């Protein structure tokens, strides 16, 4: 087995928003092929972590490197799936245009051509969206839109996938489909996935490590070690119980509804943002 390279490296990373410190002295290294779930209550800085990796938000302190280079906007090694939000029905683009923009949308002037079209078709086929890719995107169901979002993120063959609540407001079948597609890509390309989520259960079978934020503190370890009453109680600074019912995990006592049963997702509407 070849040694996997380090794709993401954060050293003594601290992020402050206004007067509020989101997290401090974050030291993590994520290697190619890893599936990392990021958990924590609203406002803990999960989305902000993705924005730091995308080069959109600078760290207050410390350093962040993507494949050995400082994080910067427009890094082609990164694929990004933003928080699941339905497209407006009147939007003048088709599903395939969304995928295509993910490949060439940052280029000025004309051109693109056949190679792009091939790349786009391949990505659409890989997520099984060929049947409806030529329909206006706003008319597709949430699950169909999310498949195309995945095709958009994967079309550029990224080594690192950043996913922000990609399961939000999806039904159970679609949740399973989304996680399976992402995991399939990870295995095929040895890509790393950083997956911000409220619901650990749909991704638990795939996750290598969990990064858990709460109250400015953080912990990163295997699911078995993080999802312990003792670990989470220390993190939250209050009594938190982790229950296991069959193969599902239930966290009780965290003030957030995080980590609850997958079926409880209806309490999150698509337009509720994690943090700004």
């Amino acid at each position, binding site marked *: 087995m070849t040694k996997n390279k380090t794709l993401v490296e954060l050293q003594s990373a601290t992020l402050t928003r206004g007067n509020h410190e989101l997290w401090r002295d974050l030291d993590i290294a994520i290697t190619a092929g890893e599936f990392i779930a990021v958990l924590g209550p609203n406002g803990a800085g999960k989305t902000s972590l993705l924005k730091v990796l995308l080069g*959109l938000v600078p760290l207050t302190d410390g350093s962040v490197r993507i494949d050995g280079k400082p994080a910067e*906007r427009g890094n082609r090694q990164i694929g990004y799936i933003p928080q699941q939000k339905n*497209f407006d029905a009147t939007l003048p683009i*088709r599903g395939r245009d*969304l995928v295509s923009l993910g490949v060439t949308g940052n280029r*000025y002037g004309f051109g693109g051509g056949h190679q792009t079209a091939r790349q786009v078709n391949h990505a659409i086929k890989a997520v099984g969206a060929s049947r409806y890719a030529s329909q206006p995107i706003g008319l597709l169901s949430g699950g169909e839109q999310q498949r195309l979002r995945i095709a*958009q993120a994967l079309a550029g063959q990224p080594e690192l996938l950043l996913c922000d609540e990609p399961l939000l407001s999806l039904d159970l079948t679609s949740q399973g489909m989304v996680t399976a597609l992402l995991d399939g890509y990870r295995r095929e390309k040895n890509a790393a996935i950083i997956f911000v989520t409220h619901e650990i259960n749909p991704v638990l079978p795939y996750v290598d490590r969990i990064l858990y934020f709460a109250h400015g503190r953080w912990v990163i370890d295997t699911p078995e070690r993080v999802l312990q009453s003792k670990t989470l109680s220390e993190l939250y600074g209050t009594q938190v119980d982790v229950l296991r019912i069959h193969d599902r995990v239930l966290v009780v006592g965290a003030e957030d509804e995080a980590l609850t049963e997958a079926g409880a997702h209806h309490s999150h509407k698509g337009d509720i943002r994690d943090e700004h």
Partner: protein
Amino acid sequence: MNIDLYLTQAFAQHALLAGGLVAIACGLIGPFVVSRGMAFAVHGTSELAFTGAAAGLLVAGSPVLGAFVGALVVATVFGTLGTKERERDSSIGVILAFGLGLGVLFLSYYHGFATQATNILFGNIFGVSTDQLLVLVTVAIGVLVAMGIIYRPLLFASVDPEVAEAKGVPVRTLGIVFLFILALTVTSAAQVVGTLLVLSLAITPAAAAQRLATKPSSITLLSVLFACTASISGILLSLMSGTVKPSIFVTAISFAIYVCARLVGTRPQSIARE
């Protein structure tokens, strides 16, 4: 009236050329005006061109110069006041009301012929001078080139801002650039065809095109085609009638195209599911 006779006249040729150029520029920006929800911004900038013209008349004796400087000021103000749609619309409303009042004030201090300023509101397509035509040609070419260059990133930023930003597209800057393109287009159009026509050329054709096509490039092409059809045939009909103003024909044709597009539109409005 004999249309052939008119077509040999310079004023008619100028009108057709001006109408065509304005239609091309408006048709090009139209789909973005619609998808970015900026119809009210078009309305605001076109009416505020009157204020700029009045100020230009008073200060420099040139309504054209005033209108263009005014358009740049207006675009800057709109750009800084807010980028979120709802926020933006209310601030445009505020500026629009204040600006029109200011325009009337300027005009009351001006003691020359104010026709030039009021022409901005109602347009005078049969009075297009060679100088104005030159301005229009420049603006139309400028819009064409600028839109060609930023088309893809602007589309990306308009429909999918989060991913566009992550991919390195300067979403906010492009929004402001588009605002300037819009202001220039609308102002030059308003001088020739009037505020009323700007709306029916910058919004209606694009809205009609969206009913008929799903591919972004097809929508843009149809939008330009519809705008040109409405503009050129409106001017021709006006020439033939001799009494009816072109604005009336252009708006009517533009509206008729929109109604037809709604009736025969093949773009699915929903997808049937079992």
